[in-house]
């Protein structure tokens, strides 16, 4: 059924074009039925894209190799789950997924908001349609997933490293994040075009931004775990351009989520917030460009393709249009409120924003520099880990500390006496932690020591905020401690959800510091029966086994593991040789200690015909905190996203009072 897929995409393209033109005409001429028709066109574009997506899914499940895309990304031996994941495993399918998610998000955002902000929705529709139309054009005219050929007997298969359960969730989550950043951008642009730059666009898109940010964050963490268990080099984040591509919009969105609070509380930074929304959206487009254009060499990127110039064109057009709108509406965005003191909550948010942006721009330059260098000087220069590590320490450590400082300072201004009171406990605990760790011999890495000390500061702050807040609620409303705690969370979900996210960031920082600043590595070539030592562990190479699975030959070396003379069982590490794909992958062995949270990580680097194996072994302290941080992050994000009945009542009251349409 490739004809149906092609027709559905062509229809989707036509619908996007109609929604863009009719939506703009309706907004300019204030024509209600035409505006509704444009909205319906966006909904219909989603339906048509869903039909195209269904055609591709059926083709994948039926191993229909007459589809070039199916033949290039799957094989008959591939497990069904991975066959389905081929939908986003290749260039054309992933662009189709982009379009599907974008039209779905656009439809939902428009439907949920059209009754209470019709003046913004009427402009948001053509804006969504333009972006969706761009992706529809790509899958229709440049990179169609419905190209056909005489069917070969079998497909080329899937890259072995992609044959991992994480690939079922990691890319779709990243897409949900990337595409989700279109929603705040579309509504911000709608607010600028309509001249209605009040806070309604922020209220309408707040949860969308949080959802996109959460998906992007979790998607990256799953990607990091995939790299850790599957790629087999001993780490989880390599500052690869495509990894950076997902990190940059997440950093920009993090800055926006913080600075938007200053606008809500003080009516300040309207221009800055719009610029951050534009930056987050453009970086999401740039990330997609990096992954798909073939301009960078990365394990994650797709092959060289012709879509790069189109993406650059789209980025240039949307940047120019967005900035032109900001310049046009600058008088509306200026705020009469000024920063009252450099020592205030809003100032702390501002510093936080500057540091986040500094990291983001440092990463962006690290990605761009090799490309610029190659274009200008003809030689590609690789920006190494030390570059990123330097900026992560220079900006990341102060940022970590600011996570703890911000909540301790009052809005508007704080006196020295207030600061001495609020900083007393967190500072004491941070200093005590640092001193204790120094005594225990953790002084080898000053960055690691500072990370642990700052983390202690932040965790104390979070604990104090919850304890004092609960106590205040109890004294105000009476009742038990758990009830007061629940009331505290319920009355300000975003703030306390945010504190839980802060705790997650601290766990992440501790995990990263522990596993990178205090890790150990040992290498040895072992014959059967030989042993090697690393830290307190002794590893003995016992046997080498080979077995044939549906699509690969698996070779596994078994190692006996002892710690301080105590038998901890065995560990397997080896390689998979994929026959169809003609590729070999490392299959690492990992033993996690649930009490110390450290991992013993074994790579069988080289397996010789005589059974000798060259092993590389790591001990990574606290690395499991990184994955645990993901769970805490999701918990905090869910608390922050959960609908706030009090806020909704206040919005409804305001709308009724002013005779405006009611909030949903």
């Amino acid at each position: 059924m490739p004809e149906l897929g092609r027709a559905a995409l062509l229809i989707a393209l036509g619908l996007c074009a109609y929604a863009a033109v009719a939506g703009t005409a309706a907004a300019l001429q204030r024509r209600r039925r035409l505006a509704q028709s444009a909205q319906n066109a966006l909904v219909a574009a989603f339906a048509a894209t869903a039909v195209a997506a269904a055609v591709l899914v059926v083709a994948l499940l039926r191993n229909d190799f007459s589809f070039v895309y199916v033949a290039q990304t799957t094989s008959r031996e591939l497990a069904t789950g991975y066959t389905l994941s081929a939908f986003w495993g290749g260039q054309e399918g992933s662009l189709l997924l982009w379009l599907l998610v974008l039209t779905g998000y656009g439809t939902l955002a428009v439907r949920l908001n059209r009754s209470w902000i019709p003046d913004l929705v009427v402009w948001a529709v053509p804006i969504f349609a333009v972006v969706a139309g761009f992706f529809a054009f790509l899958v229709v005219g440049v990179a169609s997933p419905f190209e056909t050929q005489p069917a070969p007997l079998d497909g080329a298969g899937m890259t072995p490293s992609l044959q991992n359960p994480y690939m079922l969730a990691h890319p779709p989550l990243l897409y949900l994040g990337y595409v989700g950043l279109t929603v705040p951008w579309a509504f911000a642009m709608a607010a600028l075009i309509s001249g209605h730059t009040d806070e309604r666009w922020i209220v309408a898109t707040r949860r969308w931004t949080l959802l996109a940010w959460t998906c992007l964050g979790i998607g990256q963490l799953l990607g990091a775990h995939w790299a850790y268990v599957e790629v087999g080099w001993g780490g989880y984040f390599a500052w690869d351009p495509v990894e950076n591509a997902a990190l940059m919009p997440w950093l920009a969105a993090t800055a926006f989520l913080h600075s938007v609070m200053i606008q809500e509380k003080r009516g300040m930074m309207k221009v800055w917030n719009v610029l951050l929304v534009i930056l987050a959206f453009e970086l999401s487009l740039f990330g997609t460009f990096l992954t798909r254009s073939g301009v960078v060499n990365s394990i994650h990127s797709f092959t060289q393709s012709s879509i790069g110039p189109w993406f650059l064109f789209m980025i240039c057009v949307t940047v120019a249009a967005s900035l032109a709108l900001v310049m046009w509406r600058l008088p509306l965005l200026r705020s009469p409120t000024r920063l009252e003191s450099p020592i205030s909550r809003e100032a702390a948010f501002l510093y936080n924003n500057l540091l986040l942006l500094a990291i983001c721009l440092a990463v962006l330059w690290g990605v761009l520099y090799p490309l610029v260098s190659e274009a200008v000087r003809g030689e590609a220069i690789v920006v190494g880990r030390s570059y990123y590590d330097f900026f992560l320490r220079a900006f990341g450590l102060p940022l970590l500390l600011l996570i703890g400082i911000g909540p301790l300072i009052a809005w508007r201004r704080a006196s020295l006496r207030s600061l001495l009171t609020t900083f007393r406990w967190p500072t004491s605990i941070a200093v005590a932690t640092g001193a204790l760790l120094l005594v225990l011999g953790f002084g080898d890495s000053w960055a690691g020591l500072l990370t642990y000390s700052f983390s202690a500061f932040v965790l104390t702050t979070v604990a104090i905020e919850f304890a004092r807040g609960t106590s205040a609620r109890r004294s105000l409303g009476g009742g038990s401690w758990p009830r007061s705690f629940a009331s505290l969370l319920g009355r300000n979900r975003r703030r306390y959800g945010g504190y839980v996210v802060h705790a997650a960031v601290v766990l992440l920082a501790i995990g990263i510091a522990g596993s990178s600043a205090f890790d150990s590595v040992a290498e040895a070539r072992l014959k059967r029966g030989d042993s090697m030592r690393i830290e307190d562990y002794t590893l003995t190479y016992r046997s080498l086994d080979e077995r044939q699975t549906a699509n690969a030959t698996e070779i596994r070396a078994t190692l006996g593991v002892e710690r301080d003379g105590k038998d901890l069982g065995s560990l397997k590490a080896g390689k998979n040789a994929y026959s169809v794909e003609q590729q070999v992958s490392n299959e690492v062995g990992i033993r996690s200690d649930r009490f110390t949270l450290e991992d013993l990580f074994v790579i069988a680097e080289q397996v010789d015909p005589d059974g000798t194996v060259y092993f590389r072994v790591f001990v990574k302290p606290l690395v499991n905190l990184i994955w645990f941080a993901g769970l805490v992050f999701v918990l905090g994000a869910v608390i922050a996203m959960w609908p706030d009945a009090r806020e909704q009542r206040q919005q409804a009251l305001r709308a009724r009072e002013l005779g405006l349409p009611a909030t949903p």
Partner: protein
Amino acid sequence: VTVALVLAVALAVGVVVVVAWPFLREPEPVSDELVEPTPEAQRRLELAEDRDRALSALKELEFDHRTRKITDEDYRAQVGPLRREASAALRALDEGRDVRPTGEPEG
């Protein structure tokens, strides 16, 4: 004629109906004008936001004081101006005028 072609035509017809539906449902509407806030309503909305912001700042200050984030002296120094700000915002909304300094742009 293939099944794919029939389905594609059905899809095309379906989307045309969906897109044309507002005109099919209301061929001759009483009014075809979009409902949008008037400039006056827009201005009052921004004043209401100012008022809610001022009231929220007062609540925040009370809470910060209760959780000992600010001292009694700081509380006393800040609560007066904040109350005056909230009162001015309430008055401005009631009177339908802007309390922001003259010459400053709105927003």
